[in-house]
């Protein structure tokens, strides 16, 4: 038996993979840095030559343009940063309402694809194929045209009770803010807290005794009842700002502009077609045998859906659904085409007025990047929570 110790492995060599890795990485980073430097220096030089000022100092200057719709007071003397804030709020407003509606419609249509009724199945199929194969921009333009051309003038508005639909948009009775509403809000928050406590208690009870308590209706009841109670304690305020037909137009009330309605309709119906496909794929991913097994164990259809099908389907549904939400938010930037003052359209106007292309586009990108990245973080957290626990 030889006692020769094998030669010690060399730590480092010109031909080692590690060394080549370092070289490749240095090269890659160098090329990227060189590219960025090339673009940046060109930009700076060009701006100097053309006398373009740079920097974000323009945000404090008066904007000098009016914005058609805004949730808070804005006029042309307000500074640019205020205008961007209005745009941001408008983007978020249409995106959040759109996401809620698109989830509802998409889920219904997705489930409708499994209906026992052939008409419902066919209708859902046609809806999905029709709406997802036409560009969203075209759909937005069509909705806007329909809303502004085919609807009657404000004086001959279509009326459903206190709702008026016309070229001027949808006008509806607006609840007037009173202190009593604050009580209602407090009641709702208290109800949510109570529901949470109840859920935790019911869960502990289930773990220790095996008794099943309602995890949905009782918390929902708590939430609603305390909300109504709070509203009642606050004096049950129920004053509405009712719109009525004036001499020239419909006066008072809250209004949704045709631009907002067109963007909302277009985005919702377009994205819902994709959501429906996501939901369908999710439901299909759960094996039929699972349902049958659950039924054989004696679970009722509601429990089968909630305890067996849904948790597994959601695992498949959530990641692509997140993508659809992000797509909806990003597509809301197309509002610029029909004049809804979202953040892109404000940036576009500011860009034309001040010539600060770099800054305006940077703000837009920052807004969308923040929204996208924070949504993905939130959804990744949810996804990790609902993922299969592997041991």
């Amino acid at each position, binding site marked *: 038996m030889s006692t020769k110790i094998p030669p010690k492995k060399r730590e480092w060599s010109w031909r080692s993979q590690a060394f080549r890795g370092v070289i490749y990485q240095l090269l890659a980073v160098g090329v990227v840095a060189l590219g960025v430097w090339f673009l940046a220096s060109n930009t700076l030089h060009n701006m100097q030559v053309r006398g373009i000022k740079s920097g974000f100092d323009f945000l404090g200057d008066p904007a000098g343009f009016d914005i058609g719709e805004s949730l808070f007071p804005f006029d042309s003397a307000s500074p640019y940063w205020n205008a961007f804030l209005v745009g941001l709020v408008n983007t978020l407003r249409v995106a959040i309402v759109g996401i809620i509606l698109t989830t509802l419609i998409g889920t219904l249509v997705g489930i409708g694809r499994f209906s026992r*009724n052939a008409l419902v199945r066919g209708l859902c199929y046609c809806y999905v194929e029709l709406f997802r194969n036409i560009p969203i921009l075209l759909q937005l333009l069509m909705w806007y045209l329909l809303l502004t051309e085919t609807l009657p003038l404000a004086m001959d508005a279509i009326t459903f009770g206190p709702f008026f639909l016309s070229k001027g948009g949808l006008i509806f009775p607006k609840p007037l803010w009173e202190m009593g509403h604050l009580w209602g809000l407090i009641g709702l928050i208290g109800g949510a807290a109570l529901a949470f406590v109840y859920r935790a208690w019911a869960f502990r009870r289930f773990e220790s005794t095996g008794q099943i308590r309602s995890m949905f209706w009782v918390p929902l009841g708590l939430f609603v009842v305390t909300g109504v109670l709070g509203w009642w304690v606050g004096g049950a305020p129920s004053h509405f700002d009712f719109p009525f037909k004036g001499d020239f137009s419909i006066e008072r009330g809250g209004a949704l502009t045709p631009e907002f309605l067109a963007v909302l309709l277009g985005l919702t119906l377009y994205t819902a077609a994709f959501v429906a496909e996501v939901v369908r794929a999710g439901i299909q991913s759960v094996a039929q045998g699972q349902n049958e097994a659950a039924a054989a164990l004696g679970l009722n259809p509601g429990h089968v859906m909630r305890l067996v099908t849904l948790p597994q389907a959601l695992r498949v549904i959530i990641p692509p659904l997140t993508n659809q939400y992000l797509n909806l938010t990003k597509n809301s930037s197309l509002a610029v085409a029909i004049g809804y003052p979202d953040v892109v359209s404000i940036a576009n106007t500011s860009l034309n007025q001040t010539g600060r292309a770099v800054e305006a586009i940077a703000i837009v990108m920052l807004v969308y990047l923040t929204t996208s990245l924070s949504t993905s973080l939130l959804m990744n957290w949810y996804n990790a929570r609902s993922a299969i626990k592997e041991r």
Partner: protein
Amino acid sequence: MTAHTFQPIAARRAPNKTEGPVAWIRINLFGDWITGLMTLLVGGALLWIVPQFLSWAVFRAAWLPDYEACRVDGVGACWGVVAEKYRIILFGRYPFEEQWRALLAMTLMLAMLVGSCTRAFWKPWLAPAWVVTLAVFFLLMYGDAMGLEKVETDRWGGLPLTILLASLSMMLAFPIAMVVALGRRSTMPAIRTVCTVYVELIRGVPLISVLFMASFMFPLFMPVGFSIDVLVRVVIGITLFAAAYMAEVIRGGLQAIPKGQLEAAATLGLSYWQTQRKIVLPQALAMVVPSIMNNFIGLFKDTSLVTIVSLYELTGALSIALNSDADWRPFKIEGYLFIALIYFAFCFSMSRYSIWVEKQVNKGKAR
């Protein structure tokens, strides 16, 4: 003993038929009371809406290019707007006398696209064939050679531009996407970071802001006195955008390759590139063809956005056809429906094709 006479019991009813149209209707439309109710509700709504729509779109429609006829009371859709303006809608601002060139170029491109979808064309010569096709396309569209009049790219428009933007960006994006996807799975942290940042950055912003960047900021990026055609800038913008999305799709395919295959390849002594070229990519790419097809459909629809940075593809061409013509402007909705139909025809057939490809790819896996 009384004589028992044979008393047959009454014959049972034959079981319900489960085949044939009558049975189909009974099961699918009136299976139980909920289904029956839904049939009545949905069927009633359809019976109310569909005849109204048909009457507007077909029976009461005006088909001739005569705007006076369209304005008569009681006339439905005015398809005359399409009959009158179809050349501007389809070819945009391309010079009227030269539009046969655009038509020829577009037909060539379409034939090539359809050809590439069939198995007979999946040969090594497909790539050079595409290069030749693109060269001929540019020669026909741009001219300035072989006795053809020169047509600047800012006059290109309509359907040929839509098809060019979608297919050219897709082809350019593919190699970038492949490199980025491999980079995101690299073991080298710097390369991985660069690729991840690129993908997340692009996927985090809307296409419209990338297009704004291409049209407003690109001139600032380049050295003084160096100007790039707006079409090229837009193609670069769309390519970079599409590449990020495609990279994610390809990465999904790469991830689906079991690690054991890589280890086996390493055992056989294959280098990194040999492993990727001979083992990983052939399997991964075949797996993601349907998803890439979906990407292409998305890209095809997204080309409509270049209207906003003033390139007049199909959607933009419709605006220039109608916005300046007061006689026809009231019938814009019919124009929109016409181009919606074109987009639908393209996207729907592509999605059918993608389903077919998916079946082909899965054939090998089915046991």
